[in-house]
């Protein structure tokens, strides 16, 4: 096994990892702020992919239009579910919004299959051949993908940790009553959070759609690895989510010469397990106190 071969595997892993990372980014936001694992995130991603596809089609093939309409579409769905469902479940044990989010996921998928059927759709993107950079082969569209993931991370991170809005989001997550008494409108903060999470999901959907094919189950299938990445990188930590996604992607692909292709998704979980053995709260956790 040559070094170049492994290097290529690592690159493949990083690309897959970027997609997982985008999903994880959306998840970790909701998980960290609204305090529950949002199982509908996958289907919001699917909405993003379809909306992006529609937007591109309507604009006569403009990818930028696809990206925008994907993000807007997903953000709108995300907000709608906050407004009609999750808002009403604030303060309950995380299991309840989780179950509701599974319901939301079903509802979204039902709507998609009802109106659009099961046929696959494909973004209109010109196909380019890979470029060789030394031993590594890179496809330009994959670079857009990686750039998209990083940009989304930068925006989310800055928002969460460098703006008053982010501070308020974390305050609401931490102690909703105290936040109210401190003059923070949970509704406004949460609205912003769900919009951002939706937009990130939308971006994930469009990029995933461009990379693969647009199908009703595409987002749901991304959910599991994205959750793993979220946990790996510590819940609520955007940098962690992205690092977690990349780590899982790369570990999976690099393992293939040793465990084969059908066991590789198990490797993602193995990595998760090993990390959690050493750091039970994920890679980026701070200490908790018991007193």
């Amino acid at each position, binding site marked *: 096994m040559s070094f170049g071969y492994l290097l290529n595997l690592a690159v493949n892993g990083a690309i897959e990892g970027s997609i997982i990372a985008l999903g994880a980014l959306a998840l970790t936001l909701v*998980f960290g702020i609204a305090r529950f*694992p949002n*199982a509908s995130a996958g289907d919001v991603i699917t909405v993003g992919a379809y909306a992006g596809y529609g937007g591109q089609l309507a604009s006569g093939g403009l990818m930028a239009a696809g990206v925008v309409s994907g993000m807007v579409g997903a953000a709108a769905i995300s907000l709608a579910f906050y407004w009609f*469902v999750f808002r*009403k*479940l604030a303060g*309950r*044990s*995380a*299991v*309840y*919004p989780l*179950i*509701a989010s*599974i*319901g*939301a*996921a*079903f*509802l*979204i*998928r*039902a*709507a998609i*299959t*009802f109106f659009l*059927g*099961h046929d696959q759709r494909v973004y209109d993107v010109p196909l380019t051949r890979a470029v060789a950079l030394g031993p590594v082969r890179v496809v330009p569209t994959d670079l857009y993908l990686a750039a998209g993931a990083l940009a989304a991370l930068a925006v989310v991170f800055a928002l969460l940790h460098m703006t008053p809005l982010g501070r308020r989001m974390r305050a609401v997550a931490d102690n909703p009553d105290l936040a109210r008494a401190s003059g923070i409108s949970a509704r406004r903060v949460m609205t912003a959070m769900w919009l951002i999470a939706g937009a990130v999901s939308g971006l994930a959907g469009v990029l995933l759609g461009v990379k693969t094919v647009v199908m009703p189950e595409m987002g749901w299938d991304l959910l*599991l690895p994205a*959750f*793993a990445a*979220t*946990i790996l990188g510590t*819940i609520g930590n955007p940098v962690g989510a992205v690092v977690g996604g990349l780590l899982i992607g790369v570990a999976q692909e690099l393992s293939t010469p040793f465990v*084969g292709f*059908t*066991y590789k*998704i*198990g490797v*993602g*979980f193995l990595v*998760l*397990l090993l990390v*959690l*053995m050493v750091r*039970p*709260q*994920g890679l980026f956790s701070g200490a908790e106190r*018991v007193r």
Partner: protein
Amino acid sequence: MEGYLLAVGVIALIYMLMTLGLNLHYGFTGLINFGHVGFFAVGAYTSAILAVHGVWLPLAFLAAVVLAALSAWPLGVLSLRLRIEYLAIVTLGFSEAVRLFIVNERWLTNGVQGIPGIPSLSEGLGLPMSATTATFILLVLANLAAILVIHRIVKSPFGRAIEAIRDDEEALRALGKDPGSFKIRVFMLGAAFAGLGGAFYAHYITFVTPDQFLPLLTFYIWVAMILGGAGRVSGAAVGTLALVGFLEGSRFLRDIVPGVAEVEMASLRLGVVGLALILLVIYRPGGIMGDYSS
């Protein structure tokens, strides 16, 4: 009609065994187990493999239960170290690992081709009745036994201790009890119920393939538990019946809603299930029987 209801009943009772196990995990102890289908699969495959090799069915069932319980042991050990949400994803990973193992280890499991021709209960035990009837009767007995066992346990000091774990395990530690030993036992016990359900399932469907053990089933069981009310023994039973009634009842929706094609019907059914989940959680959060916090 009876035959159909019996079949639905069998599925409901199999799910009920799983729900009882999950309720022990989450409802009473607060362990978030998202890999329940993994124990179910271990039970199903164990019994299936042994039975097609001619092992007497009661023994195969016993092995299924024991192996499912044993497979939960490492997760129990892990649960000592992990915070609750983290355990969730690890268990989910476990169930996927079980499925991957089944897919890949063909020498044992016949891989994706699955194992056909598993003897049914009436066949395997030589009972003079239809397979469905035999399975139904034995499942009723198994569920009654399971309910009795769980009822006994949750009313005992053991039960109080696991409920204390659900609320605050550090505090329990300070009182000289090892949450770990309780958690491990609970994990194994709940898994045993799922394993038993798996064995029944394998001999009822008479065919197992890895595709039957996807995480979606775990979610269904969660829904059943929440539907009935977590931390209530009666909740598991009621919740499962409601879930299965719901899933099956939607088959008859078509007779009520005219002019919808079958494909659209399927979408509609999924949508109705989704909507029902949402409404239930919003308007009846404690489930049908009320959960432990009410």
